[in-house]
């Protein structure tokens, strides 16, 4: 909210400087975001007239100018290009105070200058053409003080307003804050104070729970009421656009001044004339001031005349009963409406106004009549023939100020302070001067502070009053053990492992487009949809981390990267049983050169399925019951036949494989050598052991006898896969490991077959195996291979 310094100063005696003011407001939680100086603050500058222009004898770009200040003629040196004989200009003599400081006499290139013709910036003026000297209006009288031609020096403060600061939404209200917190003396605005008992326009409140109070003042003879310049200037400084009619401008002025929105009806256009505050009837229409036809419903509160709604209460007035330059008789409305009702109406009609902003935050019920009288005063003062005919205060049930019991011990317990009782009492007294000093204090909350309801609220006021620094950083909190959820713990573990394996972590948004879902072969039907997305790019909640990772891949390939090894951990969303389900997944992909940059030792290679499979082994190392399986149903984004399902303790632990060519094509990749995994972290969380001692695998003793090994190369048909062979070795006596060390196809191997070389390592805990014993065990191995797989020794 904008605050004009001079306006605020109308209500406090001896106001502090703008900077001090900003500091004082900031200390109590009203953050001043900007202080902007406006108007003129120079001195010693008069209107001058240019009589003659000569060349400077020693400088091409300078001129010698004769200037009249009304009394005499002076010669000055000037470098501006836009000077002309006859111009009226701001002329500063030695001693003048300008934006750069005091002006001193100077010799410029050997010629004495008796003053200076000023530009706007030299005068410290904002918003004027600054390309040369500032040219004044023809009508300006030489010798007159130039400052009279400009708005007075002032300041605009931009104050950030929080939703609970409804008591600060005006100049008067901020002055009141300063008076409460800093003891500055508050001045009251001038109001029309006479009581007038006429009742030409009856006012009825049908729904007192939605309209606590309705003050109405009828004024006649207001035709031709113009807005005075000082008021228009202030409204302009507020960023409002004055209309020139005080019936409209005055209403805005009072709102900025006191915080109470008001409205003027043209009585000649009111049917009856009468005023009724009631709920709208469903289907009723209202054309608002901005010309929009609104369809009303029973949830809305309206002001109606004898036949129709004339205003949507607290939000906007109707066009048909609005004042115009021809209006002669008006009814000023100043009311207190139910905040949620105003907010609901503002939301459902989409109309946000300065008025609804204040009403939905809650206005002061004790302010309504004061604001109506203030507006009356402003109108009557500027329209000589105006006559007040009726002052009505409809206030069926008077607002009862809540009483909060304040026990100083409780305040100190909430704040963690040791503030003396006297200090707490002094603070409460600043709000409520008549507060009696008997504990616990019965603090009667001012009507403008409807946010104070409890001792917690009062404690905040006390801390603001004394200063938040009164709260020490001190604690005797007891110790408590710290723990993490399994999902959090395994998430960190997985991230650290993947980063250790060379994956870089990325963060993508949770939103995807229909096109991206489709490109990944995912169904939009099962996806949670955002009802109010920022754009169609962000319409659905991701069901898989794949779209984001592919976008990241694309982004980096487009920037010339040749190797992308990335992962992400994040939430995925599904529709489920009429509701939603969320899972945290961890997914990653490898594409391009691997290892990145290659090596002079081994040349350059590309990432492939076995790299990623090996990484999965590392990721799940030590987690019992991990294995790969042929998937019963692989996600559709994998290339058929190039995907394995992972299992952990019998549960699915996600999939690993090569992406399908359709997915790659949809994202414009040149090939589908993209290897991808996606794992639900819940599988790891289920296997996670919270106790450290349980997580530690017990160390097994090793044999004290040397081990032996033999390599065996066999040729067998390709239909037999390695996992089957490996499983068949179980049961071979003393076999410690069977490690595949070579796979060969080609020369000397029949078509459809391959050669596998396996290193068998034997170890006994009882003795050193001799050649014959090892040979016997190898025979058993070969028997199994021959019998089960029709394998033969490679010659």
């Amino acid at each position, binding site marked *: 909210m904008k605050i004009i310094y001079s306006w605020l100063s109308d209500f406090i005696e001896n106001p502090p400087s703008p900077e001090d003011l900003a500091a004082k407001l900031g200390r109590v939680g009203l953050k001043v975001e900007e202080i902007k100086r406006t108007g003129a603050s120079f001195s010693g500058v008069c209107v001058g007239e240019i009589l003659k222009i000569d060349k400077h004898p020693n400088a091409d770009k300078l001129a010698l100018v004769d200037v009249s200040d009304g009394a005499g003629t002076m010669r000055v040196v000037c470098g501006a290009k836009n000077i002309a004989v006859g111009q009226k200009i701001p002329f500063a003599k030695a001693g003048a105070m300008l934006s750069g400081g005091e002006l001193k006499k100077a010799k410029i290139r050997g010629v004495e200058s008796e003053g200076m013709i000023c530009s706007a910036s030299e005068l410290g003026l904002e918003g004027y053409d600054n390309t040369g000297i500032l040219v004044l209006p023809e009508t300006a009288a030489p010798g007159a003080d130039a400052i009279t031609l400009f708005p007075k020096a002032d300041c605009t403060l931009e104050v950030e307003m929080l*939703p609970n600061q409804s008591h600060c939404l005006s100049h008067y209200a901020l002055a009141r804050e300063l008076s409460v917190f800093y003891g500055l003396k508050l001045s009251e605005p001038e109001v029309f104070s006479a009581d007038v008992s006429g009742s030409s326009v009856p006012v009825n409140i049908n729904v007192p729970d939605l309209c606590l109070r309705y003050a109405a003042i009828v004024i006649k003879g207001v035709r031709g009421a113009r807005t005075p310049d000082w008021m228009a200037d202030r409204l302009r400084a507020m960023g409002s656009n004055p209309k020139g009619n005080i019936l409209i401008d005055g209403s805005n002025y009072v709102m900025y001044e006191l915080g109470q929105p008001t409205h003027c009806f043209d009585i000649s256009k009111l049917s009856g004339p009468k005023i009724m505050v009631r709920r709208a009837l469903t289907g009723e229409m209202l054309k608002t001031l901005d010309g929009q036809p609104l369809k009303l419903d029973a949830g809305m509160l309206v002001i109606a005349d004898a036949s129709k709604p004339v205003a949507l209460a607290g939000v906007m007035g109707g066009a048909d009963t609005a004042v115009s330059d021809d209006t002669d008789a008006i009814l000023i409305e100043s009311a207190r409406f139910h905040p949620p009702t105003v907010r609901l109406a503002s939301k459902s009609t989409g109309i946000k106004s300065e008025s609804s902003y204040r009403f939905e935050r809650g206005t002061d019920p004790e302010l309504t009549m004061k604001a109506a009288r203030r507006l009356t005063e402003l109108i009557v003062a500027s329209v000589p023939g105006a006559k007040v005919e009726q002052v009505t205060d409809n206030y069926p049930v008077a607002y009862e100020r809540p009483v909060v019991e304040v026990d100083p011990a409780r305040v100190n*317990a909430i704040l963690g302070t040791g503030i003396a009782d006297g200090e707490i009492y002094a603070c409460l007294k600043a709000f409520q001067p008549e507060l009696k000093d008997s504990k616990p204090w019965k603090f009667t909350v001012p009507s403008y502070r409807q946010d104070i309801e409890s001792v917690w609220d009062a404690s*905040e006021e006390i801390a603001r009053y004394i200063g938040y620094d009164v*709260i020490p950083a001190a604690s005797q909190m007891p110790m408590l053990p710290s723990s*993490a959820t399994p999902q959090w713990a395994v998430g960190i573990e997985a991230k650290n492992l993947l980063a250790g394996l060379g994956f870089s972590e990325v963060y993508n948004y949770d939103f995807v487009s229909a096109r991206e879902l489709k490109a990944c072969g995912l169904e939009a039907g099962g996806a949670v949809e955002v009802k109010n997305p920022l754009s169609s790019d962000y319409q659905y909640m991701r069901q898989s981390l794949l779209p984001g990772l592919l976008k990241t891949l694309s982004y980096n390939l487009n920037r010339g990267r040749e190797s992308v090894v990335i992962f992400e951990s994040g939430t995925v*969303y599904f529709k489920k049983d009429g509701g939603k389900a969320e899972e945290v997944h961890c997914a990653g992909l490898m594409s391009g050169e691997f290892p990145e940059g290659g090596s002079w030792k081994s040349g350059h290679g590309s990432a492939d399925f076995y790299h990623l499979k090996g990484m999965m082994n590392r990721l799940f190392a030590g987690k019992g019951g991990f294995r790969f399986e042929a998937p019963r149903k692989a996600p559709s984004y994998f290339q058929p036949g190039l995907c394995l399902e992972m299992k952990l303790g019998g549960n699915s632990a996600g999939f690993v494989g090569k992406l399908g060519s359709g997915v790659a094509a949809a994202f414009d990749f040149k090939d589908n050598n993209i290897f991808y995994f996606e794992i639900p972290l819940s599988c790891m969380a289920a296997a996670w052991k919270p106790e450290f001692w349980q997580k530690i695998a017990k160390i097994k003793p090793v044999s004290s006898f040397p081990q032996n090994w033999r390599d065996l190369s066999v040729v067998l048909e390709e239909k037999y896969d390695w996992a089957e062979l490996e499983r068949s070795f179980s049961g071979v006596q003393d076999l410690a490991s069977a490690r595949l060390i070579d796979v060969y196809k080609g020369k000397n191997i029949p078509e459809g077959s391959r050669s596998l070389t396996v290193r068998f390592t034997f170890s006994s805990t009882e003795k050193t195996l001799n050649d014959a014993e090892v040979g016997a065990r190898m025979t058993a191995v070969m028997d199994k291979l021959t019998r089960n797989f029709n394998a033969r020794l490679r010659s």
Partner: protein
Amino acid sequence: MNATEWKEKLSAIRDSFSVSINNVQTENPEAIELRFLGRKGELALLLRDLKDIPIEERKALGALGNTAKEEMMVRLGALKGVPASAGPAAKPNLDLTLPGWPFPKGTLHPLTVTLNRMTECFAKLGFSVAEGPLIEEDYFNFEALNFPPFHPARDMQDTFYVDVKDASGKDMLLRTHTSPVQIRTMKNQEPPIRIISPGRVFRSEAVDASHSFAFHQIEGLYVDKNVSMADLKWTLEEFMKDLFGSSAKVRFMPSYFPFVEPGAEVEVSCVFCRGKADGPRCPVCKGTGWIELLGAGVVHPNVLKACNYDPAKWSGFAFGAGIERFAMLLFGISDMRMLYENDLRILKQVQ
């Protein structure tokens, strides 16, 4: 010759080598080299004698002899003004300056690094991690947190809604803050409760250098008997010291969040300029000496009541911070969009 005699002889050769080296003005370096290290030099002859020594001792003695030889060569080299590594025996067979094997370097995202570090800091202060859903009910995200329906405080958080309804028939929403985890935890647990809840949140805002429609927060909640603003300030000051160094100070300024009362905005003393007024204006704290980092306060009695806690018996504090802001400070990032662009040239810089 036995091993002991051999060693004594080696020692004697080394001594006389030292004497020669020290008298280099009178002796010529080439002559010294010939005398000790030449093909028929004293050391070469001694090494040849090793053949008479039993095999099990020979190896160790040989190593001693070779070490002595290398030492002598280095000292002679230095004398001749030749760098040690260029000496004939120091010349390696391999170019050790060739690149090592490219073990791939992976990185954690700056937000993960920041989040993990913050979580660790709070774990030391006895805070446990709690988590909650990202698609939330209006009740947990707003109502139970003292944002009544039609309250203007709801304008502080522009909300995304999804096409799923909760049990009461209201549209579910993407949580706008991590605070609903406060409610979920209090409804499931008895005090004392001391939790943090890190995670992702969403607000319908245009993306710019300091805003994103998806970002991260860390929530803190402590509920027990006799919990005060002073406990809160101590906790946050300890946390800030852990993160920004022991000189970090915390300042509270009045502020408003519906679920706390009194409420405070928490600022930390600027560790980047240490609040020095002289010199160029600090770009981080804008010369104020303080950086705004958190919102905090005493748990509002309405929140306790919503969780069936008696506000006369229990009290608590809560705080919340944006992770992005911390990450940007710690990593020196000035544009939040950088955190979601996933440019590996950026991410690979994380140490």
